[in-house]
């Protein structure tokens, strides 16, 4: 088998689709084309990416509802009465920095540095918790001032959209804790690395959704 693989190295088709960057290595073809089937990591990354796309489509429905209902305040408070741009800026900074530290954990994992992987995951989780704390206190003070989700269609769509994102961040924080524990117990195993990959895709995607939220909900809402 290794002799067979070696003969394939020289005459690899440089224009074939898939299997990038593997030109110089002998391949162990398993009957699914020259390079064999894609690795588990690529397949799992693709599957999780499809889930994230469906999640984004779900968010787009909440965004569409909010965009349609942004002026339907029913005589109640509008965005410029409720939102504080400074708090939104701090929340944005928390999530953006956590996205960066999440990327740092990817670098540390590739270097197989357990300590820095744990530290950067911990910082990511703490920034996520800080974001959740700010958003939670925002929500409770709005509800305490009579601007709860039942006040107007605008506020219903606001709490549905921003709350849904908050729930995703909460799930992500739980996921961080799980991955830190699994790294301690199981180490850099191939399956743990794939779970870390999925978590990082999830966390970066949440930050992308927050970019859309702070623009559409808060900044455009403040300008109305």
């Amino acid at each position, binding site marked *: 088998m290794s002799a067979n693989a070696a003969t394939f190295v020289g005459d690899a088709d440089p224009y074939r689709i898939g299997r990038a960057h593997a030109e110089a290595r002998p391949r162990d073809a398993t009957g699914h084309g020259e390079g064999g089937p894609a*690795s588990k990591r690529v397949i799992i990354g693709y599957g999780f990416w499809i889930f994230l796309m469906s999640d984004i489509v779900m968010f787009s429905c909440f965004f569409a509802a909010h965009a349609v209902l942004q002026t339907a305040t029913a005589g109640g408070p509008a965005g410029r009465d409720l939102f504080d741009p400074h708090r939104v800026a701090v929340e944005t900074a928390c999530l953006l920095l956590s996205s960066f530290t999440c990327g740092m954990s990817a670098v540390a994992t590739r270097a197989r540095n357990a300590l820095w992987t744990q530290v950067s995951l911990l910082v990511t989780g703490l920034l996520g918790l800080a974001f959740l704390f700010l958003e939670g206190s925002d929500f409770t003070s709005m509800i305490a001032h009579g601007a709860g989700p039942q006040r107007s269609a605008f506020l219903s769509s606001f709490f549905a959209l921003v709350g849904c994102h908050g729930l995703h961040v909460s799930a992500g924080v739980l996921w961080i804790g799980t991955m830190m524990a699994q790294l301690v117990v199981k180490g850099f195993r191939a399956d743990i690395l794939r779970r870390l990959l999925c978590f990082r895709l999830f966390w970066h995607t949440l930050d992308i959704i927050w970019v859309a939220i702070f623009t559409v909900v808060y900044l455009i809402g403040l300008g109305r």
Partner: protein
Amino acid sequence: MTDRHQTRDARRDEDDLAPGIAEPAESRTGVAIAGYLVGLALSIVLTVASFYTLGTPLVWHEAIPIALVVLAIAQIGVHLVFFLHMTTAPDNTNNALALAFGVLIVILIIAGSLWIMDHLNHNMLTMHQVMRTQP
């Protein structure tokens, strides 16, 4: 699964690429960190620009929402490239196609909703007009 399969699995996992994984060319730690730093710097610039646009007299008032949306789309692009490592590499083709399809659906849902609801609002009589039609 046998041990031999396990090790081969792990080795091929290392060779391959998927979203969220940097190119092998930047597998050196310093270069990888520099990539994330560039992404962070660009994101900060775009975020600050968004918050600045809100209160600036530089942009015509009616055009501020459009400027904000353009800045947000630029920042989403920065995140996709520098944080999610979306590329056009052969192993990323499927991911890029899934992203393109997702973007198509998102545009259809949001633009379609806004368009249809705007027309409905235009064609609906306001309460004041309803009162006037009464004899």
